[in-house]
């Protein structure tokens, strides 16, 4: 995880875009909470910066 986050950062992708959480099958509430929180964070960060780099065809970002 750490290695990948560092790599993403070098590529110019915020490390917050990658997350690992251990959630058991019995922790439904925790799962929903984590996903909602992560989705909100990603919305705040906006589309992947690599998608909008200059010289690259822009693709519609499907949510």
């Amino acid at each position, binding site marked *: 995880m750490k290695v990948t986050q560092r790599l993403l950062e070098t590529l110019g992708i915020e490390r917050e875009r990658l997350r690992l959480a251990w959630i058991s099958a019995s922790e439904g509430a925790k799962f929903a909470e984590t996903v909602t929180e992560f989705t909100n964070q990603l919305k705040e960060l906006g589309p992947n910066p690599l998608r909008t780099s200059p*010289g690259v065809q822009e693709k519609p970002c499907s949510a």
Partner: protein
Amino acid sequence: MLIKMQDITKAMQEKARELLQNKEVELVIGFSKGSLPLRYTPCFIRQPEEAEKLAWGYGCENNLAVYLRKRPEKMAVIAKGCDSRSIVELIKENQVKRENLVIIGVPCRGMIDRQKLSRLLAGKELREAEIKDGLVAVQGKDISASFPLDQLLYDSCLTCQHPNPVLYDYLLGEQVPARGSDTFADVAGFESRPPAERRSYLMKELSRCIRCYACRQACPMCFCEECFADCSMPQWVSKSSLDVQANLFFQAVRVLHLAGRCVDCGACDRACPMGIDLRTLTRKMVRDIQELFGYTAGISLDEKPPLAAPIKTAAGHV
């Protein structure tokens, strides 16, 4: 004392002949002279009388560890520092049997980057090159010049910490002093640039990628039976080289797969026909693995690979 390349060549031929004659090995993998000045090419010797084809010089740049996997016969291989480190990792990953391998180590003074030379010659044709006392004297049509050897060596050789083979059965020539420590200043410099600049640099480099996969083929550690880039069900990454994001994604995943295994030999970078800077990413990974895990690939057979060993961090786990 500076041992001459010719002496090493001679010792290499003798050792290969002896090993083949005594049936200690069936195959010797080394280099022979190429048809152009400063060029050497990997060569495979099976008969004792062919041993004279072997040669050693400043163009023996290929990482020969790439040829060792999945060979049933006993073989000998010529190994520089970087080749030997790749061999160590391959043994650790059960890809090569140590008992089937005779390693003929050769301390390496660095290899000449023909691209650097060609830039200095402004594209003029090189016809002859002679290396003497740290100077490379070149002759060609309308040229006669001399350059310091260090100016022509590959970048990967200029930061090399292990010019001497780490694992060998026979050593030809004298040990070479290692260069001053590698500070990874290039990686730090790249990371200090703003994210947008880093992105556009990498995208610009990878926009030249033609997806020939020479980087993958030249790498001794890139040996998956089926590469994720070749999969079509599911298709993890677009196969079109026109998709620059996918080219970058391919390199990012390649680098990630090499975490803790890459010895920074620079074979991928040299194999690239488009001259794409691949070492910025590979070296970043090498440095991160050193920082996070205190691990340098290919140094010892006993040290566990970082991703197979328990991880200790300040927080206690990762």
